């Protein structure tokens, strides 16, 4: 490792095996720079969904770490991620957030690229004495792009772990979102809630300890869950769990308590317009057992795919680090294919209740991340305590590591993956 961020002992000393973590990993510019290089500009990073670029020429502007890129479907039907940087003198070639284009024309000196990134023309080409190598001046393509059922991940590393290896057990749980559709397909075409907070990107985490405390105002609105048989999924005594899947992908695994509450969830669908047809379609598509399991989950795996994707509620959430103390969070509600409109509308309104800048849940998260970022500047004793449940971790039958819902398994294992990536020099 070059340099020595965070003081003596470097990265290794900052994230200890006993659950103690040094707050410099959330506050240091030097560590942030290293995260860009070793996590975001190297590993697999979520960049978008195939449904965002259905047709040739469809594009979205995105960033991978610090780097502006274009997610674009070429006229050859292939989806690519291209550096949004003119090969001449570096200007952006795509200035709109989204759209459809046959060409990306750089407005500085007029170099133009087609939707596959190929340089097709330059202004006043005679100045290059026929020596300009057009083929060698395509927009730079991010070397690896792969999809899991429409979710697109890119990596700047030309080789290394495949996406399937990277996702590991996480892939099977992503299915909870996707298979909430009886057609097994979702589209991210409802727009996006973009939010920001003045805090570190890793604070978004995945935390089962905080909801009953931090989100008390929301629970008091929803306290009418009625039936005595209803199991509170946020209680340690519930069938919920925290789970480390693989490579820092973690989950607030509410599947157990949701199955316990299956009847409440089915009753909910009874009342939603189109809900009864939805229940029938799910059982027809997946069989009664799997269908009911998926209905009980309400399409919410409540998981984090390290480092920048979360599937929560009915949305895909992208975590975008801007600076050590500034983060954007973009939330894309997912539309289910093959369901009555009323079902999707119900999901959309439910999403707005909890998520977005004016909602009843995520603003309180943003607020506490900001307070945490400020609090961590008191560095006299910089060690955070992430030890909750460290002595009651168990290995589940599928090989994942599990604990009670309030345990800090997600924090510990995300940071273990973080440490592994941060310690790889090359």
């Amino acid at each position: 490792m070059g340099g020595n961020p965070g003081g003596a002992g470097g990265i290794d000393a900052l994230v200890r095996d006993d659950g103690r973590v040094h707050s410099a990993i959330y506050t240091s510019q030097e560590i942030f720079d290293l995260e860009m290089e070793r996590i975001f500009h190297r590993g697999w990073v979520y960049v978008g969904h195939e449904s965002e670029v259905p047709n040739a020429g469809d594009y979205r502007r995105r960033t991978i770490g610090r780097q502006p890129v274009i997610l674009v479907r070429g006229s050859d039907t292939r989806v690519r991620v291209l550096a949004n940087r003119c090969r001449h003198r570096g200007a952006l070639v795509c200035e709109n957030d989204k759209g459809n284009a046959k060409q990306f024309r750089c407005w500085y000196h007029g170099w133009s690229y087609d939707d596959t990134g190929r340089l097709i023309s330059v202004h006043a080409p005679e100045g290059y004495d026929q020596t300009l190598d057009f083929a060698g001046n395509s927009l730079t393509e991010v070397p690896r792009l792969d999809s899991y059922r429409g979710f697109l991940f890119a990596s700047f590393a030309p080789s290394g772990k495949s996406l399937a290896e990277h996702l590991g057990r996480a892939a099977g749980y992503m299915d909870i979102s996707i298979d909430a559709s009886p057609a097994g397909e979702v589209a991210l075409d409802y727009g996006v809630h973009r939010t920001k907070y003045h805090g570190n990107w890793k604070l978004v985490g995945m935390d089962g300890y905080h909801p009953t405390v931090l989100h008390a105002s929301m629970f008091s609105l929803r306290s009418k869950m009625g039936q005595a048989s209803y199991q509170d999924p946020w209680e340690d005594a519930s069938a919920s769990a925290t789970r480390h899947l693989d490579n820092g992908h973690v989950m607030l695994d509410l599947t157990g308590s949701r199955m316990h509450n299956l009847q409440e969830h089915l009753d909910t669908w009874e009342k939603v317009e189109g809900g009864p047809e939805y229940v029938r379609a799910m059982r027809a598509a997946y069989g009664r057992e799997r269908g009911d399991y998926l209905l009980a989950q309400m399409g919410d795996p409540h998981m984090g795919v390290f480092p920048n994707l979360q599937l929560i509620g009915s949305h895909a959430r992208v975590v975008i680090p801007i600076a050590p103390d500034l983060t954007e969070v973009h939330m894309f509600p997912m539309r289910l294919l093959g369901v009555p409109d009323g079902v999707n509308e119900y999901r959309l309104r439910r999403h707005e209740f909890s998520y977005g800048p004016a909602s009843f849940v995520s603003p309180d998260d943003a607020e506490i991340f900001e307070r945490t970022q400020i609090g961590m500047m008191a560095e006299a004793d910089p060690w955070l305590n992430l030890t909750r449940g460290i002595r009651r971790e168990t290995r589940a039958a599928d090989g994942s590591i599990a604990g009670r819902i309030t345990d800090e398994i997600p924090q510990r294992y995300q940071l273990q993956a973080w440490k592994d990536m941060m310690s790889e020099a090359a």
Partner: protein
Amino acid sequence: MNGVAVELLKSVEQFVYREARCMDEHRYDEWLAFWEQELLYWVPCDDTDEDPRRAVSIIHDRRAQLEQRVTRLKGRYAFAQQPRTRLLRVVSNVEIESDSGESLAVGSTFALGDWRSDRQTAWFGRNRHVLVRHGDGFRMREKKVLLLNNSGALGNLTFLV
């Protein structure tokens, strides 16, 4: 503009100014009383205000959700409003776009300053109120707020706009 039209515009202006002041001062119950029973409070998102059934909104409240919003804000546990955001808005460019007799569509613009956590944030937007005549005054049936930056990354917007 004749005398009657001027009077109507004046009373509409006074109404939207009073509503603005009420929001600035976090007088939630009073603000709730500005509304009709059946209502829509809509803050579109992501530059789309076509069809809220096909696009996510920042706020899309009917009465039940609006009452929940107010209940939450009045309680002790809405941490994003502890402490409360200090607010000051200037409402201007009030225009009566249409008048059906029973109700009026009113356009206006606003500049809103917010001060919280040692940071000042500026918001701008365009309102569209649907006002229903009520006694000698009005009640709001609909309010749509188009924020200038509704496609940008937004911070804390848990106060009333």
